[in-house]
């Protein structure tokens, strides 16, 4: 049924194309919609948390800006001070170049210098909100377990759901990945899983306090990957380091020219890099597609009532589909990140004796 509706809408669109061409000249006078600008504005971090624009009025949450400049020391002010175009306290938001969208100050010789920026930005605030939410959820569940005996009936409702998901992750991801030491790493990996899952899901809800693109921010995914990186390399066993520096390959591959050790050492860094980019790219892509589909409504709205209505209808259908897909992706990416982390940790815990 839905398939036919989509096809019908597409046919309507094709039939109306000549009319659009004719209409296009008339509407060309209007300011074109900057789709990529809108998408990037939503994907990127910002100094304030913009909620909605009603008419000409922007409603946004003002967030603290914390800067350290080598020229003028510490600065602390609210982002609402930046609303004027000439900036505040010598700082202004850079429009072009490498620092576009960031606060910069102008040096004595006229160049733009980026200060150390510790501002509590939209993403930073979202991390804190999601973190508090996650702690509240998990500690609430933990409290249930503290107040019950093992002989009691298993939990129902939300606590039961958390237990179900946690045990699924433990049994299907952590146990096979890490091996027999799984108990030691299960809390860490579960926290990783839920942190990513909650941030992914919160990113899909469009209204404050959710809606920030946290896991689509490369700094966030980098930090998460560093958690895995340090767990793997700090707790790596002798066997793990032996496999990197002196792997079981023919000697000519490692003796005069340390070919394999080089590749393995390179691998140490590519693993967290792949984790970083995978999560970042998946979330960014999902958000971009949903935003693009949303923008399409505003573009086609200018093309006349018939095409506007039919295409908006198609667009909404696609958005529903994409949101369902993103729900799935939110889960899958958290799952994959946890699975790969578990496997990397498992690989770093090998025993030398077991390999022989």
């Amino acid at each position: 049924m839905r398939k036919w509706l989509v096809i019908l809408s597409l046919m309507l669109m094709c039939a109306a194309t000549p009319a659009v061409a004719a209409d296009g000249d008339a509407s060309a006078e209007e300011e074109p919609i900057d789709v990529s600008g809108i998408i990037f504005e939503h994907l990127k971090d910002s100094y304030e948390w913009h909620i909605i624009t009603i008419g000409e009025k922007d409603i946004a949450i003002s967030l603290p800006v914390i800067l350290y400049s080598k020229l003028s020391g510490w600065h602390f002010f609210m982002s609402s001070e930046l609303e004027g175009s000439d900036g505040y306290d010598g700082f202004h938001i850079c429009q072009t170049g490498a620092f576009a969208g960031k606060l910069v100050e102008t040096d004595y010789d006229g160049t733009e210098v980026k200060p150390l920026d510790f501002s509590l930005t939209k993403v930073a605030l979202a991390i804190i909100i999601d973190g508090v939410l996650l702690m509240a959820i998990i500690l609430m569940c933990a409290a249930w377990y503290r107040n019950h005996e093992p002989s009691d009936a298993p939990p129902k409702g939300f606590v039961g759901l958390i237990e179900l998901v946690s045990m699924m992750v433990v049994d299907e991801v952590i146990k096979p990945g890490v091996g027999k030491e799984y108990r030691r790493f299960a809390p860490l990996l579960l926290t990783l899983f839920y942190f990513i899952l909650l941030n992914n899901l919160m990113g899909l809800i469009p209204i404050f306090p959710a809606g920030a693109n946290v896991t689509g921010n490369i700094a966030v995914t980098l930090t998460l990957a560093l958690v895995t990186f340090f767990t793997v390399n700090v707790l790596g066993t002798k066997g793990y380091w032996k496999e990197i520096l002196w792997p079981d390959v023919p000697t000519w591959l490692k003796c005069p020219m340390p070919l394999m050790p080089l590749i393995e050492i390179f691998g140490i860094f590519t693993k967290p890099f792949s984790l970083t980019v995978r999560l970042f790219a998946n979330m960014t892509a999902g958000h971009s597609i949903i935003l693009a589909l949303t923008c399409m409504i505003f573009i086609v709205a200018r093309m006349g009532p018939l095409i506007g209505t039919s295409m908006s209808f198609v667009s909404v259908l696609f958005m529903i589909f994409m949101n369902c897909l993103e729900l799935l992706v939110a889960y899958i990416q958290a799952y994959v990140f946890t699975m790969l982390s578990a496997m990397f940790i498992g690989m770093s815990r090998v025993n030398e004796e077991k390999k022989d």
Partner: protein
Amino acid sequence: MDLLTPEAGTVFWMLLAAGIVFFVLIKWGFPVIIDMVDKRNEFIEKSLGAAKAANEKLAGIQQECDNILKDTRAEQARIIKEATDRRDRIVADAEQQARESASKIVADARTQIQMERDEALRGIRREVAEISVQVAEKLIIGNLSEKQNQSDMIDRMIDEVESIRKK
């Protein structure tokens, strides 16, 4: 494009916030849940074992019950049979005894009767003899005064004696 360059400030906030979240949840969050689930699984396993053992025990008790019941039935049948036998024997014995004592009583009675009859006969005979003697005395005394009479009487008496002898 700055979407791809990690921002130091975000990393700082992420380290701070996520660090706290990770610390709290690793220390007080998930171990509680995992421990509890492990303990519950252990408990369930133990309970299953106990239930199995109890079931087996119950089956054993049932078997024992059946055996006892069977034994009791057999015992009951045996006792009833024995009682019946004993009753039959007692009845038979009693009958036998009764028969014996009855025949004895009858035999005794017969001898008694015989003896009494003999006694009575003897008495009668004695009395008859006495009466005869007295009658004879009187007759003799009355008749022997005439000669004819005397000879008649002797004849008659001889006849009588002869007829008795003939009998």
